[in-house]
């Protein structure tokens, strides 16, 4: 209990003192995970949307592999990326091993199946309900997927949170490919692992509390976006989408 109280106190102290070392670790963690999410999402959203609407031979097998990839152990991903990026590996010429880029790559690989699988499910459900109507308007598979992706954009924010949560909380992959080098590749999870191994449990727990706070802040932000969207829909106002001439005319009436 004392350890937990100490950790909360330490976390509070670390936050309020704006410790530059801690700030650099937090910022690096956010940067790696955010970049990995952006990369994985740019592929996963499109791939998931396509898988949601397309029907082809062997689709079941593809989905089975995709769902299996949801349980990819992060250490295994780290090991595979390590082998690819090691000097004798096929991507060794990049010189990325034990670098920021390697961590981003590893987290992107880890998060890609999550984004793809969850988007696929969401788009497939939407397509079951509305796909025929879009088809009747002349939308082929590609446009159907894109329109549904756009229409489900708020629901898909949850997918992105899940992906970010997975990325920022994993430790195995970034430890293997990043090497936990102080000031270069140390992120929150690897710092927690290090402090735990050193026996500094309050600091390790404090970092854990900070990690949770970061995710909590993100969730609050998403909730606010959702609430704003609901309020906007309820109000029924779409001023931002109005043509300029209508806006001018409306302004003239005031």
């Amino acid at each position, binding site marked *: 209990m004392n350890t937990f109280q100490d950790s909360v106190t330490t976390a509070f102290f670390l936050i309020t003192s704006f410790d530059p070392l801690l700030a650099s670790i937090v910022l690096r963690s956010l940067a790696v995970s955010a970049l990995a999410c952006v990369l994985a999402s740019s592929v996963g959203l499109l791939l998931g949307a396509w898988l949601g609407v397309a029907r082809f031979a062997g689709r079941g097998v593809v989905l089975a592999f995709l769902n299996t990839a949801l349980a990819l152990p992060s250490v295994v991903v780290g090991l595979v990326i390590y082998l690819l990026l090691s000097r004798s590996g096929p991507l060794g010429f990049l010189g990325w091993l034990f670098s920021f880029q390697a961590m981003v790559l590893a987290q992107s690989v880890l998060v890609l199946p999550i984004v793809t699988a969850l988007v696929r499910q969401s788009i497939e459900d939407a397509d079951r*309900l*509305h796909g025929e109507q879009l088809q*009747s308007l002349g939308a082929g598979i590609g446009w159907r997927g894109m329109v549904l992706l756009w229409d489900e954009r708020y629901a898909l924010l949850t997918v992105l949170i899940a992906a970010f949560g997975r990325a920022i909380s994993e430790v195995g992959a970034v430890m293997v490919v990043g090497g936990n080098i102080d000031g270069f590749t140390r992120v929150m999870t690897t710092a927690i692992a290090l402090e735990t191994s050193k026996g500094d449990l309050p600091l390790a727990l404090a970092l854990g509390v900070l990690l949770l706070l970061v995710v909590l802040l993100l969730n609050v932000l998403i909730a606010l976006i959702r609430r704003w969207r609901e309020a906007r*829909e309820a109000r029924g106002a779409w001023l931002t989408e109005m043509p300029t001439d209508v806006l001018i005319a409306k302004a003239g009436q005031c």
Partner: protein
Amino acid sequence: MSSANPLTVAADVLFQLNAVGVQFGRVHALVACTLAIGRGERVALVGANGSGKSTLLRHLHGLVPASSGQMLRPVAARQAMLFQRPYMLRTSVQNNVAIGLWLGGMPWRAAREQALAALERVGLAELAERSGKTLSGGQQQRLALARAWALKPQVLLLDEPTASLDPAAKSEVEALMAEFADAGMTLIFSSHNLGQVKRLASRVLYLEHGHVLADAPVQSFFGGTLPPAAAQFLKGELG
């Protein structure tokens, strides 16, 4: 309103179905359906739930393929379809109409302009900036009609367009359907509302378990001799 099947000239035929069957797994949704639908007709599809009305409409619109038989389209005609519960995208009413035109290849700006004209046509122009999701059921169906009308179809297929609407909304939608038909559009619609069928249709098809059991001009359907199953359906619905 034309009272007889006007298919004396082959050029008037828009859809020619020859023993068309549609099967979903083990379910025979449409069985050996043979019929012709001509330009300018107002065809009502009636029958109990699961009788094959929606499947026939979806097949005519090319959404479900035939498992057997074939459909011929002697004349190419633009067509649009209206569903019982229209899909409203999370965007403005105007954009909801424009999206149909844009998907058809029209530039977005022109699509939005044309969408506004379509909304004026159905009396929804003043709601153009509202979110489509916030409209009432009747308004959403009128929006869907605008979306269909904007495509300038020669054939309009409607799957129970007024089901679950209140009487006022029903008559608004019906009035628009009648206006479209008077302008020369071919209407093919399914309905459980026999009053509506009497008011709007020139010809009635009665379906049961995927079979077309009766095909008659509207006066004959409601006043003439029908096959026993159709007569019993009519008696049940009217009684």
